[in-house]
């Protein structure tokens, strides 16, 4: 319960700090980005997936409310579902530092994490986000995401992305082992309708790794899944 209060404090601070700078060159803007809203066709039940965020702030301070959720079409259960609330601030030309909380609503049990990380643009146009998490039961974990865009024509671009989860400790209840726990790799082909709207198709591969995969096997679950995806990226 402490952490949501902390987060609310962050939000409040963001709007109080820049109160002196209400000029156009530092105005507070609101952006919604749905990075991936997609349907995944794979062995077994198909899956719906969404990842996106709401960013409110000016050049100096931002608040990010994000969501990532995955739901199987068969069971009607959320496979995974998390929300995060972060405060973000520039630390260099291309990078922001961010801190806040992440709350996992699924899978069971619900878990809250403190989050601290970096997001920005690496050389060669690689968008990078890396976060460290400290959960309310004391586990430390890391997640890194990298993606880029390669224009094939002026309207079609390929978007390779990878995401890697690492856990510093084992958590039986959440079925996560120590070490590399999950990898996701995708290749999506977008068609640019406007700079803020691009439908896409592609492939996505997800695999549980190491001890985390052992947990899955012990429950008779698949450890990996390859899916064909169709979806849309949208920003406003």
């Amino acid at each position, binding site marked *: 319960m402490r952490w949501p209060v902390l987060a609310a404090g962050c939000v409040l601070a963001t709007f109080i700090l820049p109160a*002196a700078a209400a*000029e156009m060159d530092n105005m507070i803007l609101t952006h919604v980005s749905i990075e991936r809203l997609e349907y995944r066709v794979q062995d077994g039940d198909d899956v719906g997936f969404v990842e996106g965020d709401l960013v409110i702030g000016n050049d100096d301070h931002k608040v990010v409310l994000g969501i990532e959720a995955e739901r199987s079409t068969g069971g009607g259960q959320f496979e995974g579902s998390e929300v995060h609330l972060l405060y973000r601030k520039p630390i260099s*030309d291309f990078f922001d530092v961010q801190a806040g909380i992440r709350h996992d609503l699924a899978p069971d049990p619900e878990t809250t994490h403190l989050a601290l990380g970096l997001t920005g643009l690496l050389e060669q146009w690689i968008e990078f986000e890396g976060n460290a998490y400290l959960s309310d039961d004391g586990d430390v974990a890391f997640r890194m995401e990298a993606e880029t865009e390669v224009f094939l024509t002026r309207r079609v671009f390929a978007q390779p992305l990878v995401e890697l989860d690492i856990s510093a400790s084992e958590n039986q209840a959440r079925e996560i082992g120590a070490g590399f726990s999950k990898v996701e790799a995708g290749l999506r082909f977008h068609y640019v309708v406007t*700079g*803020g709207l691009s439908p896409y198709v592609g492939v996505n591969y997800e695999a549980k790794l190491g001890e985390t995969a052992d947990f899955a096997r012990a429950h008779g679950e698949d450890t990996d899944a390859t899916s064909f995806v169709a979806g849309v990226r949208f*920003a406003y």
Partner: protein
Amino acid sequence: MKLRILTTLCLLLGITPAVAGTYDLEVGPISLDVSGQSVDGFAINGQVPAPLLRFKEGEDLTINVTNTLKVDTSIHWHGFVLPFDQDGVPGMSFPGIKPGETFTYRFKAPKAGTYWYHSHSGLQEGAGMYGPIIIEPEGREPFRYDRDHVVVLSDWHEDSPMQVFRNLKRSPDYYNGIQRTVGEFFRDAEQDGLDATISDRLDWGEMRMMPSDISDVQGYTYLMNGQNADQNWTGLFAPGERIRLRFINASAMTFFDVRIPGLKMTVVQADANNVRPVPVDEFRIAVAETYDVIVRPREDKAFTIFAETMARDGFARGTLAPREGMSGEVPDLRDPPRLTMADMDHGSMEGMDHSKMDHAAMGHGMGSMDHSKMDHAAMGHDMGAMMSGEDDDPFYAPGSGLEPDAANGGKFLSLADLRAQEPLYDERPYDREIRLRLTGNMERYMWSINGKKLSEAEPLRLQYGERVRFTFINETMMAHPMHLHGMWKIVDVGAGKWNPLKHVLTVPPNVTISADVEVDAPGQWAFHCHLMYHMAAGMFRKVIVEGGPEDTAMIDPELEKLWGMANADAVSGAHH
């Protein structure tokens, strides 16, 4: 009462009062369909562009501007030399015009030439609020023409200006429709070799810059006198007549390369100042510039006025014809230009292997030189010999990808070609130099001067009577049309007293240009990049001219407070 005494006095002394005119303008909303979709904008007297205003040089003007909008508005008289409180910049010259209010501008019409007017409130000028002005001369002009046409170029977007600004802030390449593709990679590999092409891609990737970053906003519908390419605005002529075309670039963000296939154009005026005539085949007009050219079509046929955007994402088009309803051949768009390493700023190039780059080593060396201390005419010549072509423009970095070539292989106008027809000021050395680095962060869409946005910076303070040299050092990858209100910039093209006067000075990437300013206008003035979203994002300074005639130098302390900047200064000042 005062006026009556003055009039009586004039009559007694046998002086006839100068011409005086009263004009009424009304600012209101408009819905305009020039792109296939109805879009809301702002209009003056219900027109986009706003009505052509014709004033007489020295005319005593009374202009009543009524605001029927639900938001504040303003009108700025672009390029006019006038009292600062009539300049029309909210928070700098006056409080702005509130909804329902009428503000009366009173000033004397400036010297003859082609000018324009536009809103200086928010982003209104990007949505239709601009129009042409002609100041007719008292005496004769140094060139002859039989008739004239105003050619207002502009850009019209279906996204509202605020939406465009938001999109740029979230994703600076949102409107970039000319990104480098895989196909281009293979073409380059074939032409320059695979190694060179890969290392070129890696160099750009290392800097996180885009060679395709020619214009921030594409996807506009480009207009000529408010008409799209299909509507084909037509200006009439009788064969053999000399036609004066008064080009005004009233765009928010778009540079145009203008040509009239089949006709030579003679440039006679730039930014309302007569220049020694320069015959050209093509010229580039930056945002907010004006160029007057004279053409003489002798044949009884239609000629296309073709204004291609610098990014080659579209064009504005019109026709010069002996009769209505005719049209000439419309050329194809050329390939978009690509920035080269020569356009890259010196400071950010550290750590790169210059030996791998063709022009870069040279561009690098030249770019870091101080052009202000060189005779540009001589330099242009030397560099012409150094580089492949003879006609390299000294006002672009050598090897620059932005440097234009005429479509027909002929003469493309350079800033270096401009010479004042008659110098406005005596030649004298400048008293001091103010160096302004044009800076920005493209990824965050932040634009600044000397690394500071308007809200973070102290105003520039000038002393009445001094001559100040402004030296612009462009450290970004974009060309910035810098506009100083109220005072002329005498651009150093190496021609001494014949240096041309401009109200907008375009500074291409990785180039340093100097211009002298006679500080003869008391008050406070706006000084900014005229790319509307660069201005909005902070590439802006307030200039305060201290001293001078007491009556005009009075700055209302309330006005000072209006500009949020003053408060921001107080806050940031406390930390230093």
